[in-house]
């Protein structure tokens, strides 16, 4: 699924000696009594495509605005390229932002919009013309240079906004929901382009989004935020496969959660007795929890497999239930199965019309199972 690793072949965040490009140290922001951002520590490395992901109101945009200099942290420090940003106003930061509303200047043409930043720096006329043309070529809107923003479509405006944010070759580009206003098809296509442009220019991108698919597709690392705090930071696959909390498990993708008590811990597996499932759950790997602990096990819907009719109970990671709901999504279908305990489990099946798999329908009795490697232990 991941389009690009943000241009990073080596992973600087795994190297303890690597110098982070942006250091966010204990940053909080209060609006009145409300803490929009609460004690955030983050390191972002040069060349990363870093996504701040969260529901609306989780503080991701406020954090981005603090990087741009539009908000001042109530506490904590922000360093960009080793420089403390505390007293540096927005117009002197090595940062450009692409706004959610695009914020194109309505009284200027596309070319003038893109040239604006260079004019502020006193760049010569010839060079401005050259760099604007180059940037418009990069985002493929050179033909529109003479138009005003209100004569452009949403997708074209988005490109102008991107060109304007990139033309000064900033060390850091901030993108606030850059694809939010585009329709789905255009969005998917633009995601690829954004990643390509970022790799080509080698800048550091920090993107804010509420769309987990978008974050997973584009980012080298994803930071999941909730209520002003960081829940988990990691590569998309890491966050999806090994969420560290129930919130992350639920927010990224869909999660089946089973509560239970640890009955056995050995070096290579953990066994959990789960009344939710009506049986035992075995998880590969052990040692993380103590016997007797109350835990929650997460299994992704696509990791669950339907067993052929009449299969015997394997004794663990398996249950029988009745199909209650089916959601047809085209490529896959989502099945909601009700277990004996009343618990509902979701799993997906690819829609392969010409297979031997018996089609499932409402009120069918079905037995499913999953491999021990696919269960993730969450501490409650």
């Amino acid at each position, binding site marked *: 699924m991941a389009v690009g690793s943000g241009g990073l072949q080596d992973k600087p965040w795994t190297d303890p000696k690597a110098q982070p490009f942006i250091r966010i140290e204990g940053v909080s922001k209060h609006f009145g009594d409300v803490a929009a951002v609460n004690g955030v520590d983050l390191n972002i490395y040069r060349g990363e495509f870093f996504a701040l992901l969260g529901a609306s109101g989780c503080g991701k945009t406020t954090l981005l605005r603090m990087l741009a200099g539009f908000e001042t942290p109530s506490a904590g420090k922000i360093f960009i390229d080793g420089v403390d940003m505390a007293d540096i106003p927005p117009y002197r930061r090595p940062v450009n932002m692409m706004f959610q509303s695009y914020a194109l200047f309505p009284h200027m043409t596309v070319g003038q919009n893109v040239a604006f930043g260079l004019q502020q720096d006193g760049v010569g006329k010839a060079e401005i013309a050259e760099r604007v043309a180059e940037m418009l070529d990069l985002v493929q809107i050179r033909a529109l240079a003479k138009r005003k923003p209100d004569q452009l479509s949403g997708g074209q405006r988005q490109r102008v906004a991107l060109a*304007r944010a990139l033309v000064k070759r900033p060390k850091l580009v901030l993108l606030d929901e850059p694809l939010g206003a585009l329709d789905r098809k255009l969005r998917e296509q633009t995601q690829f382009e954004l990643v390509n442009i970022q790799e080509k220019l080698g800048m550091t991108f920090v993107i804010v989004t509420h769309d987990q698919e978008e974050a997973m597709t584009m980012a080298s690392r994803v930071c999941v935020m909730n209520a002003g705090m960081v829940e988990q930071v990691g590569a998309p696959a890491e966050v999806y496969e090994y969420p560290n909390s129930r919130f992350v498990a639920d927010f990224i993708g869909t999660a089946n959660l089973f509560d239970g008590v640890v009955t056995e811990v050995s070096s290579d597996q953990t066994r959990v007795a789960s009344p939710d499932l009506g049986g035992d759950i075995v998880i590969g790997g052990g040692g993380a929890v103590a016997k007797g602990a109350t835990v929650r096990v997460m299994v992704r819907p696509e990791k669950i497999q339907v067993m052929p009719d009449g299969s015997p109970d394997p004794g663990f990671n398996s249950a029988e239930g009745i199909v209650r709901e089916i959601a047809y999504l085209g490529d896959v279908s989502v099945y909601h199965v009700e277990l004996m305990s009343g618990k509902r489990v979701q799993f997906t099946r690819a829609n392969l019309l010409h297979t031997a798999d018996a089609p499932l329908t409402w009120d069918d009795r079905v037995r499913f199972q999953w491999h021990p490697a696919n269960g993730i232990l969450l501490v409650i």
Partner: protein
Amino acid sequence: MNGRLPWFAISMLVLGYLFLYSPILSLIFYSFNESRLVTVWGGFSTKWYGALMQNDALLSGAWLSVQIAFLTACVAVVLGTLAAFALIRFGNFRGRTLFAGMVTAPLVMPEVITGLSLLLLFVAMEAVLGGPGRGMMTIVIAHATFATAYVTVVVQSRLGQLDMSLEEAAMDLGARPFKVVRVIILPLIWPAMLAGWLLAFTLSFDDLVIATFTSGPGAKTLPMEVFSSVRMGVSPQINALATIFIVVVTTMVVIANQVAFRRRA
């Protein structure tokens, strides 16, 4: 729609236009009247326009009114724009509600009260500070107080529609705050400022009550002049003067519309 308006709508439209414009049309018509009597047609003539040119009192009143209206409009646009900025851009500062109320109070204040209170103020100031002497300046001050309210309302609504992130984007691209105002905000709100200026000019130009209260012995504005001459019977010169103003104002409005329209296209 088949392109035909129902008869009811058409007749209502005609009636409405008649109600609004027939007095003005009859005024223009009678300005070309030969007769001395305003309401009796005595044949075509432009003699009242000639007489108007000889009427120093009316002409000097008109000139004074133009000067006052011009100064008032300029002062009101500066103050009103600043007030609008304070109301829109400075968030919910302490006393904002009071400030908003005070700025717009002159909109609903009876003119007699505004005029009287300002007269009392000017008299007291003369006694304590020795000035300003009542005359053109005091009228400008008085007019600016209420015209500012109108400009504030007009500019405020435009400023409120502006996306705040435009300013942030400009700053993000390296423009200092002053430059942001100059190259981003002013170009976007100038139509509202122009509209406010024209409104202030008009309001000042046709004000009679407040000017009467706050003027001094030497300063008689056009409405004061017209009012006092009408009391002694309407001279067709007034019609001629009004016709000239209607032509001038109409031309200005048409030009302003053209300018605004071309900007948008």
